């Protein structure tokens, strides 16, 4: 058990910020992202024997976070931050969250959004994405194609940018 705890702590320390950033991009709300990721890691520890052998545990966290209810952590958040941290939070700016691409991503249907997040943001291959989302490889490809098409319709400049490059 001690070995498991150490292993989980190492995983959590290494993956938590990365997972938080990905979920934050997907949901656009800092507190909600915090809650979702915390609950997902809670689930990971509860099922650590399974999650530790997953081909992409951090993808398991992201996928779980995007499918969770977060009532417990929401209740927990009824607190007030220390002054210095209030200032730190207020001073933080996340301009990337307001980009047209991120906004369009959040408008996608859930499955398309998940596939794009796992394939393009987490850089998973199709097979691992399929395993993480519990769908066939072909369905992953299909969702990716539809998601990209939707993004292209929302942001024609994406084509333009790519042509320039």
């Amino acid at each position: 058990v001690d070995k498991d705890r150490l292993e989980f702590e190492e995983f959590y320390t290494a993956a938590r910020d990365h997972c938080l950033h990905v979920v934050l991009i997907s949901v656009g709300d800092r507190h909600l992202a915090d809650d979702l990721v915390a609950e997902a890691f809670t689930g990971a520890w509860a099922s650590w024997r399974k999650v530790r052998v997953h081909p992409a545990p951090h993808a398991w966290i992201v996928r779980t976070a995007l499918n969770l209810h977060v009532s417990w952590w929401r209740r927990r958040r009824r607190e007030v931050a220390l002054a210095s941290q209030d200032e730190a939070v207020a001073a933080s700016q996340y301009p990337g969250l307001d980009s047209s691409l991120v906004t369009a991503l959040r408008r996608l249907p859930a499955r398309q959004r998940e596939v794009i997040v796992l394939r393009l943001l987490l850089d998973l291959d199709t097979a691992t994405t399929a395993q993480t989302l519990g769908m066939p490889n072909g369905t992953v490809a299909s969702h990716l194609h539809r998601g990209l098409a939707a993004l292209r319709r929302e942001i024609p400049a994406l084509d333009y940018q790519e042509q320039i490059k």
Partner: protein
Amino acid sequence: VNDTRLAHAVRSGLAEARDSLSTVHMAIPASEIMARADEARRHRRLGVLAGAGGLAAVAVAASVALPASYPTASDSARGHGAHLAAWTVTQQANGNIQIIYREIRDAAGLQRVLRADGVPASVTFPGRENPACRNLPSPHPRWRPGLTPAQIGGPVYWGPHNDTPTPYALIIRRAALPSGVGVALFGSGRDIGEPYDRLAGVPVGLGVNLVRASSQCTGS
């Protein structure tokens, strides 16, 4: 433009968004994550016990008696660079209200949360006590190893909290608050790091009295 090239553009754009979040950090320590999962597992076990044997009463009693119902965190939140909260109010599975505090700020906010949880409460700072509050005799039982909340008996007591370096926790047993009695808290606003003797010391930074509940003092 085919999917591959478009995917490349999307990947680049999302990477830029992710990089802009480099100052955003997950604040909750691993110990708290694991404690939450362990607590949920314990509650599931108790639920199974009650369901399987019709032993609901036993399950409730066990949940009250379990010292492990407290957070079992052992890591230093500060050491992990955690986002410390000045105070956190948690409603425990047994109905008790636990206030973990490092500093008493936003007294009005704390008062609002406690009242929303059904605790007739007044929260003020020293020198700003609500003149409408009438103190009642308020013994302050102290938790000692081996004592359960039921054995402590009082409606308000200082309990253990292992989330060092902030081991300050005040527990309000709503069920033990007599009708017409509320709680008045007096926060000193002192920072963390004060010495704390878990066996004998009442932690500094927060005083508490039982008061006569009234709309002017405790809101109800």
